[in-house]
């Protein structure tokens, strides 16, 4: 236990101090934190749905919860059920096999039912496009409020996208 506490103390709070390199993205993330807090006050809940992605976007969505971006530390949480969610983060070209599941997730999500398509594939079908097994972009299956392009978009872009959408709704 002592070793764990020691390591925690040694590590410090990574969300705060500027890193030795690339101060800009770090300051940017702090600014985004402040704005998110100002808009939300308390909480936003997000349900992530992989509707057919290559899992690259999932890796970067995971990263927004690491100590550097610490999205969850702000009360913006990823939840296990669409029924608990304000927002859906959807990745992939939507595979035909996932289209029905995605529609059901959307139906189960209460208002305001914000939908963000993450990644080039979610925005326009990406390199996979449309075909016998792919419906292409997320908007071909459920209504989309905002798109975050990138292959995959880095964590800061994902945070910035969420913020931009919230700002337009606030």
């Amino acid at each position: 236990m002592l070793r764990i506490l020691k390591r925690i103390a040694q590590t410090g709070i990574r969300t705060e101090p500027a890193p030795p390199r690339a101060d800009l993205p770090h300051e940017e993330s702090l600014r985004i934190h402040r704005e998110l807090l100002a808009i939300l006050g308390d909480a936003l809940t997000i349900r992530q749905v992989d509707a057919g992605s290559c899992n690259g976007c999932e890796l970067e969505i995971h990263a927004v919860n690491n100590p550097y971006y610490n999205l969850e530390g702000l009360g913006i949480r990823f939840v296990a059920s669409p029924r608990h969610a304000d927002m859906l983060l959807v990745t992939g070209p939507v595979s035909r096999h996932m289209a029905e599941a995605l529609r059901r997730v959307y139906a189960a999500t209460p208002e305001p039912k914000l939908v963000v398509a993450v990644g080039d594939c979610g925005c326009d079908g990406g390199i996979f496009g449309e075909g016998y097994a792919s419906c292409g972009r997320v908007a071909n299956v459920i209504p989309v409020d905002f798109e975050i392009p990138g292959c995959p978009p880095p964590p800061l872009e994902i945070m910035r996208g969420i913020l931009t959408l919230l700002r337009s709704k606030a």
Partner: protein
Amino acid sequence: MTLLEGLRSTPAPLPAPVPIWHVEVTGEEWLAAARSVVAAGGRLVALWGSAADGLSVAAAYVIHAGLIWVELPLPASAPVYPDLASIFPAAGRMQRATADLLGICASGSVDQRPWFRHGAWPADYLPLHPGAGACEAGESIDYPFVKVAGDGVHEIPVGPVHAGIIEPGHFRFSVVGEKVLRLEERLGYTHKGIERRFTQLPPLEAHRLAGRISGDSTVAYAFAYCMALESACGCAIPERAAWLRALLLELERVANHLGDLGALGNDAGLAFGLAQFSRLREEWLRRLGEDFGHRLLMDRIVPGGVAADLDGPAAARLARHCDSLEREVRALRDIYEGHAGLQDRFIAAGRVTPALAGRLGLTGLAGRASGHAIDLRCDHPWPPYDRLAPGMATHRNGDVAARVTVRFEETQESLRLIREILGSLPNSALRREPQLPRGKTRGLGWMEGWRGEVLVALELEDGAIRRCHCHDPSWQNWPVLEHAVIGNIVPDFPLINKSFNLSYSGHDL
């Protein structure tokens, strides 16, 4: 000496940095070859079909000498071949997928349920046939899961949408109380027609698609695809490119192991582990983003070489990063190993004995954690691995703890390899553009990704892709996960599942 008993024709070597042969066989030889692979202690890597040059079915076996690509041409009137699942259980799902995509069936196989086809396309539509156009969605299939009956047995269906930031798939648990009696997986939800998409792309651009088969293994897939393409074109890459490719492969391995080690701590209730390892992973990805222009290293390996380079100061910085990362990982390993609560969850959970692993063909890092000393980098070291003498991490316990230990050891070894590579990068061009040959050619790429061996089999004709089959090690390991959870409690499933960390997208294609 014959390569494989039971073959009349002599296998032809393909130009590649690792030993690979191709041979065409008859129906009789098809089974004889499979049996002699078993007799020689070999294994099945992949099974797939092709309609590129008439119908055929192919299997890739690994024997002591290397990899052998065995192809059996089939008549269009009766596209049927002898079942391999009774010899190699891992062949079962691959055969079912081949039937769904090409209508080529294994005669005498026990399980003939569709695997990839859930209803996105009609049963008579064959997506990989050259003439297959667009199609309307078919009828959704009511998949017949195997029922477990008995007093107090009930089912827990999970998915395809899972309760986390995870890929989609369906798990059907049959349980008594908390104990898992049986798990049956149903995959194919992320099937998006990748193999058909390959045939619509120019060969010199399709490495981008290969790099998006499974995002966490983008380097391994792009590497394997480019190796296959260069083999088909008879193109040798410049020396510096070969070293940089190995560097990228090890960087990707470290990134994934860091992520998994954190997630495994978290799934066993140690949030500290997730915080620490996700911090280390983020610092690593930022370094990669700065040095190579992409955090996950997508599109850095290109046909004929690489599209990334390091200058002296960047190499020195990366080497220093490895030094500090190694110290941090070592300290965290001490904490993991000394944490009674964590070890209590890790030890004996999701155990796969070496005997079971051998029978089912468990591969990659999970295979090494169950006593199967298989690692392409060590078994057939190609440049620069022939100069680096990579060490192999193995364990015999086959439980979650063993898979954690293998990850720790592989991380240390990869950090050593990275520094060795950085210290001896030769000077040369970074790329030599492959010349696409006229006529029909084939090539095969075989690569040890962080999860296990990735394979890409490519057939070209007059500068176009006729068939590109990609194989993920998850094909072998998903069925073993079904066995690993038997007798464990349901709440341990996420931990056991994470300890394998298999790809859905890489499997579903």
